[in-house]
């Protein structure tokens, strides 16, 4: 096949082969685009985090004393919109996925590099509109845009926020499209489906959701915008419309969207656990197919967000039953990761600490999901802090822990530098403690009946003590998030140069230079080994594989 041109002696890599702003803004290199995304989403992460901090400070005391009611409502709305649409959804796929998907399957780039760049520009256009919206007043509907409040009653900038998310949505769609085509068409010789890293399987499943779910939220937001501008009546009960139709369409995307956030994180955790336990993942095919199962079942459960919204009792029963179905593959994954540790040779490097953190927090987040899926209990805890705690355990405890773990794991590959291990372990610990302190009390608050999106709880002073814990935790969590940002930046200049494979990890991305050359590999790789061949890496020979049962 493609004969390689002899590599020059000094190592040119994707970072230093070209300089200048233009070489970045017009790049079609998936690795550079990943870095563009990294910078953009980090920016939005800190904006969203700042809003979160203000929310927690306001809730420190029962009275509404720090900000005005309207400001508070905008804070939690913008926190949600920014964190979900401009941080979590692009986080792992657009940064780590973009960087790693082609490399892990031995390709030179994604199938459509220019569309990849277009994705980033769409994200930036959407983000710019969103930012303008935030700076000129923001939105106060909650990230859910429930009608008819959003279409008829609020006087905030719904149209702008809707368009921002609409455009960013196309960025997500195109990324998913690019991944699916790349995974189908660009695998190097020998890279069969059963040899794909689980990170790839997870991204494949994520892409399915992005492709089939995101267009529905796009059209829904378009309808909201049209409804708000022209008062068509589609969602307005005064004109014969049904506000629940909006909720159906909204959650058709927004429930699977949770899996857009968590599935890639599961992929990252699979890689990390295998590497630091020095083992092949237990039940590879079950972990792989459970990703696909989650993606598909995830589309069947949306109305469990609407059990008390006024849908029919019979529909609620169906959706509740299906909701349990989606919990099964998630449980299967957790069991398999646990079993992978058995008879491993476990190292406690920072990425592994994040993976442990993920396991713990995701388990709690997933199990509390059972409470919400069960109709009887959901009536009580729906729209309370119980829900807030639950989805933060999934999306922050799960998705964000995975993202940070992945950033540490692949940082040497991305930057060519090693991060300070001691600081990283400390940060992992701080994040874990801060997170639990912030969100565990909220489960209790929720069961006691504190509704979410409450600005002022001076009539229920009994809720204060738990809120104080939560706010204290948020401060610790904030420090935990700042630390990696600082030492990653520090390491870019002062960190030790990273070897090609600092973890002795399996996977094609570790078989090329750190940082990799522009086209990833000097020679097109040919895969002759199974995924996660840690026996060969550690002992130099293939071990007799034990099949239990």
């Amino acid at each position: 096949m493609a004969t390689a041109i002899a590599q020059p002696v000094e190592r040119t890599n994707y970072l230093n082969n070209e300089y200048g702003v233009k070489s970045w803004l017009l790049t079609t290199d998936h690795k550079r685009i990943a870095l563009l995304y990294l910078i953009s989403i980090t920016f939005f992460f800190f904006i969203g985090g700042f809003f979160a901090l203000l929310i927690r400070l306001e809730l420190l005391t029962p009275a509404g004393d720090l900000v005005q009611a309207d400001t508070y409502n905008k804070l939690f709305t913008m926190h949600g919109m920014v964190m979900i649409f401009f941080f979590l959804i692009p986080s792992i796929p657009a940064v780590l996925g973009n960087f790693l998907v082609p490399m892990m399957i031995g390709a030179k780039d994604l199938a459509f590099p220019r569309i990849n760049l277009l994705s980033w520009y769409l994200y930036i256009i959407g983000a710019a509109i969103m930012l303008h919206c935030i700076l000129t007043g923001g939105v106060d509907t909650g990230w859910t845009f429930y009608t008819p409040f959003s279409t008829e009653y609020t006087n905030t900038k719904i149209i702008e926020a809707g368009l921002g998310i609409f455009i960013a949505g196309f960025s997500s769609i195109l990324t998913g499209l690019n991944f699916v085509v790349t995974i189908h068409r660009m695998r190097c010789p020998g890279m069969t489906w059963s040899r794909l890293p689980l990170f790839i399987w997870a991204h494949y499943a994520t892409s399915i959701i992005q492709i089939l779910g995101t267009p529905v939220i796009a059209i829904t937001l378009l309808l909201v915008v049209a409804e708000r501008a022209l008062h068509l009546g589609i969602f307005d009960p005064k004109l014969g419309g049904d506000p629940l139709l909006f909720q159906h369409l909204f959650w058709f995307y927004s429930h699977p969207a949770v899996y857009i956030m968590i599935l890639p994180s599961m992929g990252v955790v699979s890689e990390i656990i295998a590497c630091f336990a020095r083992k092949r993942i237990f039940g590879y095919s079950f972990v792989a197919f459970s990703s696909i199962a989650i993606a598909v079942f995830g589309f069947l459960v949306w109305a469990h967000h609407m059990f008390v919204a006024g849908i029919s009792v019979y529909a609620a029963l169906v959706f509740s039953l299906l909701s349990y179905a989606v919990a099964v593959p998630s449980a299967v994954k957790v069991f398999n990761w646990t079993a992978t540790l058995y008879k491993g040779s476990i190292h406690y490097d920072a990425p592994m600490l994040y993976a442990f953190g993920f396991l713990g927090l995701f388990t709690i987040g997933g199990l509390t999901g059972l409470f919400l899926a069960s109709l009887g209990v959901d009536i009580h805890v729906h729209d309370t802090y119980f829900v807030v705690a639950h989805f933060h355990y999934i999306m922050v405890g799960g998705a964000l822990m995975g993202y940070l773990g992945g950033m540490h794991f692949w940082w040497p590959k991305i930057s060519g530098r090693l991060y300070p291990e001691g600081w990283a372990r400390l940060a992992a610990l701080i994040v874990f403690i801060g997170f639990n302190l912030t969100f565990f009390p909220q489960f209790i608050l929720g069961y006691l009946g504190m509704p979410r999106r409450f600005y002022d709880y001076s009539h229920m002073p009994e809720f204060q003590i738990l809120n104080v814990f939560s706010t204290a935790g948020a401060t610790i969590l904030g420090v935990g998030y700042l630390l990696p940002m600082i030492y990653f930046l520090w390491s870019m200049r002062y960190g030790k140069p990273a070897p090609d494979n600092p973890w002795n990890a399996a996977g094609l991305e570790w078989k090329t230079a750190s940082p990799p050359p522009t086209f990833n590999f000097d020679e097109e790789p040919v895969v002759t080994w199974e995924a996660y061949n840690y026996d060969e890496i550690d002992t130099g020979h293939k071990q007799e594989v034990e099949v239990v049962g």
Partner: protein
Amino acid sequence: MAGNVDALYIFLLIVSGLMTLLIFTTVIYFAARYRHRQGVPAEQIEGSNKLEITWTTIPFLVFIAIFFWSATIYFKARTPPRDSTEVYVVAKQWMWKIEHAEGQREINELHVPVGRDVKLILTSQDVIHSFFVPAFRMKQDVLPGRYTIAWFRATKPGTYHLFCSQYCGTQHSGMIGNVVVMEPAQYEAWMSGGSSGPLSATGEKIFAELGCATCHRTDTQGRGPNLQGVFGRPVMLDDGRTVIADENYVRESILDPGAKVVQGFKPVMPTFQGLVSEEQLNALIAYVKSLSNAGSAGSKTAAAAPQSAPAKAAGERTQVE
């Protein structure tokens, strides 16, 4: 209701607590037991179909059990008992307006007797709200343009929080109130004060003022159907469908009369959209209900309700609920 929900909640806590404990101890044990030691390589294990099947099936069966339990509770919580006391709730930004069938009106307060089933007929004047009483483990979104139904039975006298749990704008957190649960005697006393007559009587007055009675006559000669005994019964429509004449049907028939025309009648009724307020609608519905003396879902004649209430309440208080 609260007891049932709590029982399931505790069961879920135990199940997920055990599950968490199992996973955490296993992870921690493995992590410590199999920590990296020089010269001890990891043992490769491909997987185990038996284990996979086990940990797919067992959670699934547990989930199914939880589903049936919780579905039973839900079904019960969504089906008001037949002879409940009826209370009409109109939500608006940012207050709860409450009307008792007996005519009492309250704002942000709901007085109910202990031990009696109370059926709430909820609607909103503007955006979506949600009627949430944590102590009763009860919640129902309140939608504009239609009625949603909820019910509860308070078992202990006292004052309980009432929240709006669906975000509804600036003063969402101020849209709160109290549910005051009273002993039957006290409730009786409270009821006797300050009422402008039963809601159905108000409805009858509006019915006359709007001229409804010209067509909806009490014989078979009217241009509109006779409304005696209609409520809660199936109605044949001119396109062959049958609907139950519930609150939502009566509401639609007043606001959008052409939508579901009764068989044998012409679509001549004008719409009252914009001409009647939510409160007037409630009164009209209460009136239509009062015409239905068989009263499948409606209250008996409103005046009779207070007298029968204490006796019933006393009888039911012994039940553990």
